[in-house]
């Protein structure tokens, strides 16, 4: 059956749907969905724009097990409206993180499977506010001892509010195809011109926003091979120990980001940044296979820290 193939260990995370990712990531048959599609909690706004709705508004939430450990999980569907934050899709994420924050009996690990271009234009105000609420809920949950882990490897990446949400989490897992940032390449090209950012040049796009650059600079804590098993393995390894959210951590992050700004602000391309990080042949990074890259990234000082 094709659904089995789509969620098998070697199936591509990048090409999977949100539901396939949840099924492929968690232990078999361990997932229970909250507010599932048959509840039909859809966007109350999209019809105004003559745009089709989705039964789950593009976010799947629930609980399950990963490697035997209980987790709460949420997955954005990047193919539906770009996985965007909107009134309903956002509130589902906010509710899930608040549930973990307030109820010690619930799993104290939340996995956010990000796949989002940011805020849904048709519900921009509601979406932006949902991001603000989610970021606050994540910080409160982290203060209460909850581990919130972002997994980035979908087609829409994690941009705009999703990029900020990702960087608010305790830990970040990313794949080579994964991208995260604030303004996407197309947005920068539209506003600032093709000279600033040629969004058609995918190699440039990925060297800017892509998983390898994020991992090497310390913008992500683990690199996953683009497969269900790749994300399972990387996430399991990160779950056991996450940074506390306190003044010390934020001071360390301040230092980390200030140092990065100082060392790398003169660089115009990723390869020259990687060279400054002490990588011997930075031009070989791009085509390096995942295993080799993971080992390399684990040896880079900037890439491995608790300052998040």
């Amino acid at each position, binding site marked *: 059956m094709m659904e089995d193939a789509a969620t098998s260990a070697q199936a591509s995370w990048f090409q999977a749907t949100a539901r396939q990712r949840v099924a492929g990531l968690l232990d078999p048959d361990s997932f229970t969905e909250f507010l599932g599609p048959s509840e039909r*909690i859809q966007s109350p706004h999209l019809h105004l724009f003559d745009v089709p709705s989705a039964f789950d508004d593009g976010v799947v939430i629930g609980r399950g097990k990963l490697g035997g450990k209980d987790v709460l999980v949420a997955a954005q569907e990047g193919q539906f409206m770009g996985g965007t934050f909107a009134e309903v899709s956002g509130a589902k994420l906010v509710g899930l993180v608040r*549930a973990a924050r307030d109820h010690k009996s619930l799993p104290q690990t939340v996995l956010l499977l990000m796949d989002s271009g940011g805020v849904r234009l048709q519900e*921009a105000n509601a979406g932006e506010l949902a991001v603000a609420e989610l970021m606050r809920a994540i910080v409160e949950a982290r203060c209460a001892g909850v581990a919130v882990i972002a997994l980035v490897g979908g087609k829409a990446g994690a941009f*705009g509010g999703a990029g900020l949400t990702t*960087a608010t989490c305790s830990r970040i897992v990313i794949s080579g195809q994964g991208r995260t940032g*604030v303004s996407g390449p197309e947005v920068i090209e539209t506003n600032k011109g093709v000279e600033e950012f040629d969004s058609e040049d995918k190699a440039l796009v990925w060297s800017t926003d892509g998983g390898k*650059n994020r991992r090497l600079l310390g913008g992500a804590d683990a690199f996953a091979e683009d497969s269900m098993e790749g994300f399972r393995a990387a996430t399991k390894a990160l779950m056991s120990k996450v940074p506390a959210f306190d003044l010390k951590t934020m001071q360390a992050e301040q230092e980390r980001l*200030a140092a990065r700004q100082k060392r790398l602000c003169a*660089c115009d391309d990723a390869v020259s940044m990687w060279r400054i990080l002490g990588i011997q042949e930075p031009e070989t990074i791009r085509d390096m296979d995942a295993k080799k890259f993971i080992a390399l990234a684990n040896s880079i000082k900037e890439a491995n820290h608790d300052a998040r």
Partner: protein
Amino acid sequence: MTLDEILRGLFPSGHEVKTNAAGIITGTGKRKNGDAIAVIGVANGEALGTAGVLPLAEEVLRVVAKGGKTPILVLVDTQGQLMARRDEMRGLNEYLAHLAKCLLLASQQGHRTIGLEYGKAAAGAFLATALATDRLIGLPGAEPTVMDLPSVARVTKLPLNTLKKLAKQTPVFAPGLDHLLQMGAVAEIWDPDKPLDDQLEEALRNTSPADSRDELGAQRKGRAMAAVVAKRVIAEATGGDKNVAST
């Protein structure tokens, strides 16, 4: 109102608030009761990039490290995040999120945080500053813009006029202070004709770190579903759990 007018109105007994060439605001103001309030922000509609975030976050961390309960005021007039390939390459999302996290840390540690939106505000920079405070206040004339209508028109392929008409039916997508008030993002809009220092003190009294923006949006009929959906999620998550049910 200009930044100077606002600062004079907020702190008649004096302040040490400076704005650098890149529009980065830092300093301290003197409250009516003589206590200090920390002030940070972005002025002149400047865009916020990796370089601009660092002094702002540093200031917030200094206030938290010092202990006490000094509140923090965040003044906001920014066109949004800096749109530049190099800043993105260095991880602008981490920088902006860091500033938001520092503000949220402050509020978790007992520092009341107030956002004052007096000019523009957009997208990622909005999230990192004004929307990361406990209580967001608008001044008349402020133009918070999550997404400008021409961009919405371009992506949705709907005519601008259609969108303008739609914007009258719903506050959910179009720019404007009133819309954000209705959504629950903006707690209140100040009256510029009344003393700002009094209004600041009143706002500080009403500030709480508990996030009730979705409830507010529901009360004001701007966001009917958000609070309900979030609560239903919690109910369903805990409902199936015997331990939770018994507590």
